[in-house]
């Protein structure tokens, strides 16, 4: 006979405001098999837990139902309390009276009735619970970091400095990400490359970091502590061991007119190229799409001039398999291009540029060597207009959120312009100035007050070209929406920060979730900002939402600590909520008939064939067997098994059936 204890929590007023907790406890106390029932204000508090512990000891409880909040919050707390009192933790169940009842219903009898129902089904379930023990799995103490922007760099260095191995993969030929493209950075106006490149070099030299550039994730299997990743190392058409990085090939390559990605199309590069002078690694790759040899079958000039014979035209992509225990995703973001804005010319005016393009113009390593010159004719613009919220905060454009970084970089851009073009006039059209952050508001005020940038509160409806000028039509909403028309020489759009193209596919490969805008989803918006819903996979930087550098770095260090915490253990314990194939006495052995449908349905390849042999070594039964190390407890096989031979421990057919019957039967 079961002796079950029921512990009904008020959760302050969260539950008791709409549910009559005393009545729930009293009713439950009358159920068959319930030996003790009580309600209490905060069951998760120390006295609350002690109530559970002493009841287990004094009444000899065989099962516990805590009726309180979501098991996502406090299941570990209560299971631990039970274990401390000598009860197997898996004999403890939770009825969710808060999220599933009190929060979503009005105060009233029906609400209390529902709470009673929720308790009853768990009381009945616990009667069929069995003691289970946790599963131990080993941890591979190597981390995979995907994306080598500032976030990926920081995460890699932090993990590597705790003594663990890191594999960093970067899609582009060099690490650095967007930060390497920036001129100077708010709010201090220090040179972006000067603060970034030392870290890039450190990554390349760190004994614990293996860097693969021009590489992408192909697929991922496994689970926390035990992932298997396939990495595609795209062919660089180069033997990196032989290449000395002398750069001779890049000076002789005849395909010279390719828009440079690093310069956002404002400069040109060759087909064999190093994206920028401080690139890490500083060795070229051949862009096969634009290479004369791959297009026409003739050229190979780079091969001829290369003093070490490093060029490899026949090199193929390599697929590499690595085992890692944790993953940090730091794939960053991208910005909308002017062709997204028909009202601003659909990208047809060369002097309507993005903020990133402005960064390249303002950068000493950029196509104009840091002089602000407009792309069309190289003239220095005498009047420049900056447009905040281009696409952002605009539901009609499908981007209702604030891109967060642009208010600040616009202030920076306008300031840089005023510093570089004396006598120039700059205008900023904005909706609100969002400058929340240490020294941020002061920075914007500096732009307005010290550098004389004209801030106009209002939006721009249209930009068009007339007589060689860009006519910017807007309104000043602080002057009663008075129309404002500015004849500008150049316009900079602070285009919305958006998720990378392909972010969705990457998320699917990694089995993590993403938000409606394809940014990767954190596990909890406040309390788990760097975790994903998949254990062992963490987020850093702008792949989760538009973020500036300080935030990206902070997230990266946060993710690194999570990885280090994971790697501080030699074994991980996992909940035994996994599938098992039943075993019975010979000659049946199991109700499994060996159809193996489950093998083909298991998304984690956790099911294998097991052969039962007699003394003579003859196979007498062939049946399914679940590998507890691989099973994730998703339950797909359970649904497919036609003989109902598979159960998820803790959620068996028997338990589920009992729960349903408890709801249907009158008590």
């Amino acid at each position, binding site marked *: 006979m079961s002796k079950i204890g029921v512990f009904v929590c008020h959760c302050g007023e969260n539950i008791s405001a709409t549910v009559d907790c005393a009545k729930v406890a009293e009713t439950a106390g009358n159920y068959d098999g319930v030996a003790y029932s009580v309600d209490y204000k905060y069951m998760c508090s120390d006295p609350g837990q002690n109530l559970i512990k002493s009841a287990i000891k004094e009444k000899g409880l065989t099962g516990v139902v805590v009726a309180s909040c979501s098991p996502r919050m406090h299941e570990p707390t209560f299971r631990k309390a039970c274990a401390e009192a000598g009860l197997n933790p898996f004999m403890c169940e939770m009825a969710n009276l808060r999220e599933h009842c009190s929060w979503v219903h009005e105060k009233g009898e029906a609400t209390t009735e529902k709470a009673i129902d929720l308790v009853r089904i768990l009381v009945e379930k616990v009667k069929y619970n069995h003691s289970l023990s946790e599963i131990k799995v080993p941890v591979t103490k190597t981390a995979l970091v995907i994306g080598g922007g500032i976030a990926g760099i920081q995460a890699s260095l932090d993990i590597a400095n705790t003594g663990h191995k890191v594999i960093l993969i970067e899609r582009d030929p060099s690490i650095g990400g967007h930060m390497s493209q920036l001129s100077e950075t708010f709010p201090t106006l220090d040179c972006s490359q000067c603060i970034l490149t030392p870290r890039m070099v450190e990554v390349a030299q760190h004994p614990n970091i293996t860097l693969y550039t021009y590489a992408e994730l192909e697929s991922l299997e496994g689970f926390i502590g035990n992932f298997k990743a396939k990495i595609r190392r795209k062919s660089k058409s180069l033997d990196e061991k032989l290449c000395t990085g002398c750069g001779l090939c890049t000076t002789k390559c005849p395909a010279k007119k390719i828009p440079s990605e690093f310069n956002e199309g404002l400069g040109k590069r060759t087909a064999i190229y190093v994206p920028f002078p401080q690139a890490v690694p500083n060795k070229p790759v051949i862009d096969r799409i634009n290479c004369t040899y791959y297009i026409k079958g003739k050229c190979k000039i780079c091969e001829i001039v290369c003093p070490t014979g490093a060029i490899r035209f026949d090199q193929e992509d390599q697929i590499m398999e690595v085992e890692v225990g944790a993953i940090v995703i730091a794939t960053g973001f991208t910005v909308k291009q002017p062709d997204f804005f*028909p009202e601003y010319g659909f990208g047809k005016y060369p002097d309507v540029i993005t903020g990133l393009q402005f960064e390249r113009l303002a950068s000493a390593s950029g196509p104009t060597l840091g002089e602000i010159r407009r792309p069309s004719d190289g003239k220095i613009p005498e009047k420049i207009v900056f447009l905040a919220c281009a696409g952002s905060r605009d539901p009609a454009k499908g981007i209702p959120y604030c891109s967060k970084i642009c208010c600040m970089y616009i202030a920076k851009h306008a300031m840089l312009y005023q510093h570089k073009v004396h006598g120039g006039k700059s205008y900023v059209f904005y909706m609100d100035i969002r400058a929340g952050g240490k020294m941020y508001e002061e920075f914007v005020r500096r732009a307005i007050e010290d550098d004389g940038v004209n801030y106009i509160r209002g939006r721009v409806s249209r930009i*068009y070209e*007339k007589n060689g000028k860009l006519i910017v039509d807007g309104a000043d909403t602080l002057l009663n929406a008075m129309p404002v028309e500015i004849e500008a020489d150049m316009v900079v759009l602070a285009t919305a920060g958006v998720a990378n193209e392909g972010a969705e596919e990457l998320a699917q490969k990694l089995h993590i979730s993403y938000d409606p805008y394809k940014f990767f989803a954190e596990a909890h918006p406040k309390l788990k900002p760097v975790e994903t819903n998949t254990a062992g996979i963490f987020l850093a930087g702008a792949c989760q939402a538009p973020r500036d550098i300080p935030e990206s770095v902070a997230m990266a260090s946060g993710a690194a600590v999570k990885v280090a915490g994971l790697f501080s253990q030699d074994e991980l314990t996992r909940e035994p909520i996994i599938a098992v194939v039943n075993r019975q006495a010979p000659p049946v052995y199991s109700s499994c008939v060996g159809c193996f449908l489950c093998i083909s349905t298991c998304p984690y390849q956790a099911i294998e064939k097991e052969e039962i042999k007699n003394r003579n070594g003859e196979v007498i039964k062939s049946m399914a067997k679940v590998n507890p190390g691989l099973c994730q407890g998703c339950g797909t096989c359970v649904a497919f098994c036609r003989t109902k031979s598979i159960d998820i421990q803790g959620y068996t057919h028997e338990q589920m059936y009992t729960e349903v019957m408890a709801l249907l039967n009158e008590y």
Partner: protein
Amino acid sequence: MTLGFYPGCSLKGSSREYAESVLAVAKAFDINMEEINDWNCCGATAAHNMNKELSLALPARILSLAEKQGLTEIVVPCAACYSRLTVTKYELSKDPALKTAVTDANGLEYTGSVSVLNIVQMLDKYITPNLEGRVVKPFDHKVACYYGCLLVRPHEILKFDREEDPQSLDVLMLKAGATPIDWAFKTECCGAGLSVSRTSSVGRLSGKIIGDAKDRGAEAVIVACPMCHSNLDMRRDAINSYLGEKIDIPVLYITQAIGLALGLDRKALGLQRHFVKVSV
């Protein structure tokens, strides 16, 4: 073939030539335009500024009458009427309570089964596919296609053309042999109803439109809305005084331009009714 026809007030009054040219082009392709019996005002700008239910009941009545008359598709050449009828369909499809209120007020059944075509959609669907070989006098001029506010907006409801940079009129004019120019004022406001109350504002707003069309070498402005037409044509004096020059670029309805390309009689297209002489 028969299509339903809702002229609305303008096409019976100040923009009779729009109606004439629509009917003339339809006739040239053997399309019978059946006017909705006992139609009423769509409510225009006034109704939806004052009373939401009324602003929906008026167009709903028109749609109900069309249903009763057995019409499945109606052509609504006026951009403002088109907008009101389409918005009504949208609102009533989303809100059953509103639909009941409106049908009760009208005392007429409303199912929402009638599809509403603006003039561009009508031309696109029934004229352009058969245009080949019919263009006898290509409209060989540089034209500025002007869409105004209502033909393509709000996009969420109309789901027609690109709201910031529409193309549909340009495409039609290209097929009629014209060279549509790339210009900046396709969807800028012409001044709309201020035509009567603040003519000087219309002079300024429409002035920018005509000014840009002229600067970019347009020989005609093509419109698909009676309001736009009257501001750009009838208010030309105000425009010219705003611009300080005399601009005589004519403003044609899309159906007039197509009619000319088809070689239809100028009078049947109502070209003589314009304030700015149509010399093209």
